[in-house]
């Protein structure tokens, strides 16, 4: 490929990723404005949801130093990004659709406060079921892992989703489905991620 540069090599985020990307969790206060795991304000349109889960390594031990970023469309299914030119869908000025969360150093639990995204037009006009894109980095992960979170109460849309259907092994598709429950009147989706071994989460080369 003459004339094409190589992408800069990836390196692990290391154990101290929090210093750079979530300094409050590292134990100090430096920036006025911190990027975090709350994607919504009171003005954001859409159904409020809480996502939580644990990332497990190949020995089934929680990964307590992981950082996860999410990227999603708004309640109408539009990304807050100049590349999204889907006709007829409006931006929500109170929703960027991006956030980052760290697992708790003790429990290993991560969480996001967000809204459930709408359907996004996929390639060749095939609709994609509501989903959230996740990017996972940590010590021991040499190249950030990409996956998608889908919703357990979207069975019909999930069954037609072009990306889920691309996964040849039906048994592996369920690793991408977050399970809906109601807790204290709030909607909670549980999404555990298994880096390796039994029930290994599907990761994508995107």
């Amino acid at each position: 490929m003459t004339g094409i540069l190589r992408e800069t090599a990836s390196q692990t985020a290391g154990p101290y990723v929090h210093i750079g990307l979530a300094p409050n969790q590292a134990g100090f206060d430096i920036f006025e404005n911190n990027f975090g795991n709350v994607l919504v304000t009171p003005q954001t349109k859409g159904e409020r949801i809480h996502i939580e889960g644990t990332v497990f390594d190949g020995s089934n031990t929680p990964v307590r130093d992981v950082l996860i970023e999410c990227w999603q469309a708004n309640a109408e299914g539009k990304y807050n990004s100049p590349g999204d030119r889907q006709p007829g869908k409006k931006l929500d000025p109170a929703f960027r659709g991006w956030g980052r969360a760290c697992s708790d150093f003790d429990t290993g639990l991560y969480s996001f406060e967000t809204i459930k995204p709408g359907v996004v037009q996929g390639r060749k006009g095939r609709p994609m079921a509501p989903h959230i894109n996740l990017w996972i980095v940590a010590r021991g992960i040499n190249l950030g892992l990409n996956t998608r979170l889908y919703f357990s109460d979207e069975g019909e849309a999930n069954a037609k989703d072009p990306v889920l259907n691309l996964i040849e092994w039906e048994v592996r598709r369920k690793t991408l489905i977050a399970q809906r429950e109601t807790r204290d009147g709030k909607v909670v989706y549980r999404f555990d991620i298994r880096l390796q071994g039994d029930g290994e989460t599907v990761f994508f080369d995107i």
Partner: protein
Amino acid sequence: MSRAPVAGDEFMMRDTTSHPPAYAPAYKTSVLRSPRNALISLQQSLSEVTAPVFRAEELGPRDNDLIMNAAKDGMPVGERIIVHGCVRDQYERPVANALVEVWQANASGRYRHKKDQYIGALDPNFGGCGRMLTDANGYYAYRTIRPGPYPWRNRVNDWRPAHIHYAISGDGWVQRLITQMYFEGDPLIASCPILRIVPSEEQIRGLIAMQDTTAFVPLDSRAYRFDIVLRGRRATLFENLVQGEAQ
């Protein structure tokens, strides 16, 4: 190529030979944190070609000044340096408005982090993190203290070369990248397990910042140059399948 790519066009396929493998036993922590199944390759959709947009007003005026952004009652200890460079894509086009976040140990090789137990001293005037947006030419710059090397538990006498961590967010989700920058001439580079698992010398060289005398500030700071290449966005010929406009 008939036209320049625009936002919403897709990116060229990732060349995985540019990156260390997920499973790299020389870096022991990767053994249990690496998937065993092949990644599923996706043709990009809007979910992959879009990305969040960051605005200058979200960052503070001293966020790219690591010498001063955590100083309490004096200057941090260590060598004052400037690090600068360009963020481009694989077609050498500048990536404007990319979010560049950096973090590092202090001159003693100690991180300001509750989990770092190394005996090297904390510096009360040094935090070790900064962030900035690239300008219209993809250019970024910050000043800091040159970090020190430090020992880590891999083999018992493994030492990390001095390095600065980078996280870069471009204008497509597929461009998201975390890496580390090393310093020209550091003798620890030759034996670092985390660096040696990068599959080619060419790619390792790409992670080593070169001293840049042209950017020195006389009687004040030395400078290093570190350029970054993100995935290339290509003009989609004939029809835009990503947006779903053609059947």
